[in-house]
């Protein structure tokens, strides 16, 4: 499969669920999904044998206060998980967002068992919650790491310093 063909196939496969698609460059396709659509999307990619899950990147979007001029309303904080799938040179990124208040995203470990390491990392680094993930033990952080402290959130500035209000 060459790049355009791979991207086209992915577009066709995921058309049903997506709430937004973009191609940031020739080799990439970004697909925005609602959390409930993640598992069906991953299942269809696996069934069609489209690439493999190369990584899960977590992003923190901290809450934003309303701008003084009132043009931008206040925004709640949210987490975004990027599921990067690679097929040859083509990279498909499934983007799933969950607000801090309801951080649960379905686990994909029942479809791709090797995703557990990435999910464990996102749980301890970002405070993400994966519904149905088989193992929630620490993966890289020490056992005595304080609970509820997520180092890759923007509000984390170090253990001995006061945390930024969030």
């Amino acid at each position, binding site marked *: 499969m060459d790049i355009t063909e791979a991207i086209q196939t992915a577009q066709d496969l995921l058309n049903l669920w997506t709430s937004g698609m973009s191609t*940031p*460059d020739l*080799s*990439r396709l970004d697909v925005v999904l609602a959390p409930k659509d993640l598992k069906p999307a991953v299942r269809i990619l696996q069934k069609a044998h489209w690439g*493999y*899950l*190369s*990584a899960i*990147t*977590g*992003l923190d979007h901290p809450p934003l206060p309303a701008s003084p001029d009132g043009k931008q309303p206040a925004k709640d904080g949210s987490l975004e998980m*990027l599921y*990067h799938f*690679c097929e*040859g*040179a083509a*990279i498909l*990124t499934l983007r799933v967002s969950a607000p801090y208040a309801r951080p649960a995203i379905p686990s994909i470990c029942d479809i*791709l*068992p*090797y995703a*557990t*390491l*990435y999910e464990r990392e996102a749980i301890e680094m970002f405070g993400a919650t994966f519904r149905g993930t*088989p*193992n929630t*033990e*620490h*993966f*890289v*952080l*020490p056992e005595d790491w304080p609970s509820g402290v997520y*180092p*890759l959130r*923007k509000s*984390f500035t170090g253990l001995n310093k006061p945390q930024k209000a969030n």
Partner: protein
Amino acid sequence: MEAKVSPQKFIVPIGPQHPALKEPGHFEFTVEGEIITGATVRLGYVHRGIEKSTEDRNWVQNLYLLERICGICSHIHATAYVLGVEALANVTAPPRAQAIRTLVCELERIHSHMLWLGVAAHEGGFDTLFMYSWRDRETVMDLLEGLSGNRVNYSVNVLGGVKIDVDEKQAATIRKGIDFLEGRTQYYMKVVTTDETFLGRTRNVGTMTYDQADALAAVGPTARASGIARDVRADAPYVAYPDFPIKVITERGGDLAARFVVRINELYESYRLVREILDKLPVGELTTRVPRRIPENEAISRVEAPRGELFYYLKSNGTEKPERIKVRTPSICNWATVMNFAIGLKLADMPMILAGIDPCFSCSDRAVIINRKSQSQEWSWEDLRQYGIKYYR
């Protein structure tokens, strides 16, 4: 991937300390007699918070930080990073710089594979091969030092190019070193494919079939030894690989022996590539300008590290510092594979099987065999290694 805790079974925790290898990791193998029934991994003993640290440093400082993620494949981390930053800033390094990056990538792969060959042989009790390969590896270390001034963390890359050049004298030295290594590699190939005692420890041991490797998303030589032709250098060529294409080396066996053969064959491919790059080194500038502030953007950079696909995700926010950098190293993928295919194998084979994926971790100096009910017995990694060697005597 999960170790089910049951009072009847033995759990063998291995790790995390090991002063001789690179990085510590902790494994727990559940065993019934000699056979492994479950395996789980715990990392983080050398977790340094590098991803978080990048958000507090500017784009140039991060190059030096990220190059220090790994002491073995430092150049490939720097390469993945500079390619990502160059994509964000929409600049391309000049052809000569790309060729020199490729040259160092391949020299680094040679040193990494030879280091692995020694470690893997040592874990199996073949210390002669270990001593030979590490002695010969000094040749390529000297070549890298001659080029860059450093044995590790070569610091060849800068944003927008490279900071070293290759002159004719250096090229001649490299050619001579590569000729010597090629001869030695023929000897290694002979040993690992014909020595009966060696094959006794590697043939049909730790076999991962094509379907397993595919389902577990294995990468690098571990995947290629199971017949999966997956190599970022060929799939999505970067730096100078479009001009210097590589042949993807695969084997069908999927066992430890195949992993040896794949890596040794990759050495030949690297020698060929190094010679070709030296012969056809493009003429021109070494750097191009990269702005200090990078507009808001996202980039993904994938490269083929000696152990497999290395994945970088970079997000810029218009300032001098990145918004987020995510690094996924190939060993993460291959740990997931070994934790799965370890089930059903013999404990005595684990030292070589763990070494067989060329993990960028070190295992253990202290393993404890615990019977949850009564007795416990402490083992070191050395004990486990010796146990493996004696088991096959």
